[in-house]
């Protein structure tokens, strides 16, 4: 009996030791994220969902270091000269996580689904695609309604889902007619991708655990993380503690600068900054008094202290000299867009305004999202600066869901909204779609309510221009046009800062496309060294 107990104990110890050793060897990459994260690639377009998509799904083309589309699932493609038909030839060795091969019908299904549901990145293609045809298993053809300059670039955001799996799990009843719920309920919680990582575990309210796809069509280095976890918290004290205990490898982008600096004081933790192409702006409601007067808007632009933003609030952020951040392709510098503090000019502008002498009757509400410190700081700075020229501004903390509701209605919208708008793709024309075209007016990306048909037409014409050089000339004209209306205080181009465990994580930031947000978080390019962690 004693012998049996001894043997059993020994066996147990071996198992426990084995597990412990195995646990040590697992390469884990953990990142805190603002929640919720969505894993259905045709629904979301926020930061944490984008991070999930990049890892779980593939697209026809993949961005290189300069954010330009390169062959990925598609090996090559042809386009007709009028830019109305594109034919893509696919690799035959790409498989979904359940083993099904990825074929042309999946690409068609994904494009149709994205356009029918009309959410997430659908705006990149809506009104532009006439039809998608399956030529054969590995050839797919897009017929466009009109020429669309950044079409190839936009395909970076067409994430391909497993159509067989989605169709098999589609509920007959739903808002999409014959497509029922288009597999929405299923895809919300289940893996449907072919990407370098698969969904290991998804707890909707807390965490997304992704495992390495060992059968990926591009070999993934052994040192790449075996597990990539997105953890749903940005709570500063929690993030700080997890970094200190080395239970978190990368922080989210929402931590205050000083807090990040403190984290980086710990051995092996470093602070990095990435370009985002996202303007950090105060959007002014141009249809509401007194902001309907361009002189009041220009006065506010001149009263604002841009240096404080770039030195203290988002330290190191590049200036925005014009309506589009300069890291965006097609952006130009327009000096006459007010981008430096000049109280004298501000007062001169006020004198030209029809509201001169009556401004004390107005209190302008400036909303910002709850919990985003940089936005709160900018709001307080705006209040102090505006007070110097006699304009009353009242900052107002607003939960994100309320921000979304308010920006959907011209009457409910706040006088001013302070936010960053991370563009889907780093090209000026795409940025205009969200920021200035009327189709984006009812989303959080706009609160200016320009609703200008002339501007809309200019943007549409530019986007329909195939030749890049010609297109960029038109982008320049559009930026001049926007400057003449000065609807926005362009505080700076936002940069995102992260603290990460540089002591045992290799993050090749310089080789990744930075302004194309979330591609810096493609797990397969990271390397994690648990043995180095043990020595820290």
């Amino acid at each position, binding site marked *: 009996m004693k012998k049996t107990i001894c043997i059993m104990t020994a066996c147990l110890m071996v198992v426990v030791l084995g597990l412990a050793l195995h646990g040590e060897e697992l390469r884990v990459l953990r990142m805190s994220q603002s929640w919720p994260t969505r894993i259905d690639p045709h629904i979301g377009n926020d930061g944490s969902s984008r991070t999930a998509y990049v890892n779980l799904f593939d697209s026809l083309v993949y961005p290189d270091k300069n954010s330009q589309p390169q062959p990925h699932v598609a090996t090559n493609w042809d386009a007709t000269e009028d830019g109305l038909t594109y034919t893509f030839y696919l690799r035959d060795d790409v498989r979904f996580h359940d083993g099904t091969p990825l074929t042309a019908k999946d690409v068609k299904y994904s494009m149709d689904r994205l356009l029918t549901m009309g959410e997430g990145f659908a705006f990149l293609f809506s009104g532009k695609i006439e039809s998608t045809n399956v030529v054969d298993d590995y050839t797919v053809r897009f017929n466009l309604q009109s020429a669309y300059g950044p079409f190839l670039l936009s395909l970076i955001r067409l994430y391909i889902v497993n159509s067989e799996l989605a169709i098999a799990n589609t509920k007959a009843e739903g808002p999409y007619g014959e497509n029922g719920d288009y597999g929405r309920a299923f895809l919300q919680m289940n893996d449907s991708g072919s990407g370098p990582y698969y969904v290991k575990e998804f707890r909707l309210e807390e965490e997304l655990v992704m495992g390495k796809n060992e059968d990926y069509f591009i070999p993934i280095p052994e040192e790449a993380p075996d597990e990539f976890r997105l953890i749903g918290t940005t709570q500063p004290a929690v993030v700080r503690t997890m970094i200190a205990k080395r239970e978190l490898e990368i922080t989210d982008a929402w931590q205050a600068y000083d807090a990040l600096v403190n984290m980086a004081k710990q051995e092996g933790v470093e602070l990095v900054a990435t370009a985002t192409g996202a303007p950090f702006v105060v959007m002014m409601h141009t249809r509401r008094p007194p902001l309907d007067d361009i002189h009041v808007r220009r006065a506010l632009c001149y009263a604002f202290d841009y240096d404080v933003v770039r030195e*203290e609030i988002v330290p190191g952020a590049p200036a925005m000299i014009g309506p589009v951040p300069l890291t965006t392709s097609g952006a130009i510098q327009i000096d006459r867009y007010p981008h430096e503090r000049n109280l004298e000019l501000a007062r001169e502008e006020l004198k030209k305004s029809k509201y001169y002498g009556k401004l004390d009757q107005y209190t302008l509400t400036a909303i910002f999202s709850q919990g985003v410190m940089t936005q709160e700081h900018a709001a307080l700075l705006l209040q*102090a600066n505006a007070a110097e020229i006699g304009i009353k501004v009242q900052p107002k903390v607003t939960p994100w869901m309320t921000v979304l509701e308010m920006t959907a209605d011209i009457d409910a919208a706040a006088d001013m909204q302070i936010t960053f708008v991370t563009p889907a793709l780093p090209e000026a024309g795409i940025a205009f779609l969200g920021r200035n075209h009327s189709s984006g007016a009812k989303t959080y990306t706009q609160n200016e309510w320009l609703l200008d048909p002339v501007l809309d037409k200019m943007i549409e014409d530019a986007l329909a221009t195939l030749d890049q050089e010609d297109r960029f000339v038109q982008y320049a004209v559009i930026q001049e046009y926007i400057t003449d209306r000065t609807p926005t205080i362009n505080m700076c181009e936002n940069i995102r800062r992260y603290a990460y465990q540089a002591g045992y994580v290799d993050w090749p930031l310089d080789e990744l496309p930075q302004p194309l947000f979330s591609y810096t978080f493609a797990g397969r390019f990271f390397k994690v060294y648990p043995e180095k962690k043990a020595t820290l």
Partner: protein
Amino acid sequence: MTTLQRIERASSRRDGFRRSWYRFSKNRLSVVGLVTVGIVVLLAIFAPYIAPYPKDAGAVVNFRHANEPPNWSHLFGTDDVGRDVLSRTIFGFRYSLMMGAVVLSIATPVGVVLGLLAGYMKGRWLDSVIMRITDIFLALPPLIMALLINAVLGPSLINAMIAMTIMWWPWYCRLVYGQVAVLRNETYVLAAEMGGARRPHLLLKEILPNCISSVLTKMTLDMAIAILLGASLSFVGLGAQPPTPDLGTMVASGSNFLPDFWWIAIFPVMAIIFTVLGFNLLGDGLRDFFAVEEQELDKQ
């Protein structure tokens, strides 16, 4: 009235006060409470003169001095925007006291009047209507309800006060109702009624003075709870808006910087504790004091 009578009355009033103070001060803790509340009230009233940087309570930013730890020029340090935490804490007392005072000064009279009416009309339809409405309100968790009301009206200090007032009056109504139901059958009330006293006289002169001690005690204790609730609403972003130096808002934004810049949150937290503790001790003292007084009256 002769001079002698006047002197006698004055001295007996003075004696009464002395006796009351003696009874109150026998409990050391209630004196501590009184002093604490006194300090808080004085700080709140004279905030612009006491605070070292009174401008920091308003729309001022000074990012170049952000997050300085406590030092001689900023005893409580500076916050994430570079404002003096001590000055803002002193001004914070104003908003906390104002929150408590406004809420109670509206909720109490409403609750007391409704309680008086319902208690006096016990068994009639008015009693049922008032008390059932009261029951509905009492069945709802106050913080959740206040959150809901505030979320609908939009976050601001005024709306936080409205939300709290709506949730507060039923407690006074219930308290007074219980007492009136007993008092209305007391002999002196019946005697006055038979003597031809009219209803307002009975309610205001005979019954109300005998409920007032418990209402006062409850008000003092509630002041602490109201301040806490107000701070909680502000903490979740539904109270005062920046840059108002409300203690709850200060704790909420300071908690983002814990543990590195602990002073931004800790000092406002201590200020809340100080205020709440003061009102609680004072309330306890008052309760004991009134209890003893009633016992003595009973003996007489």
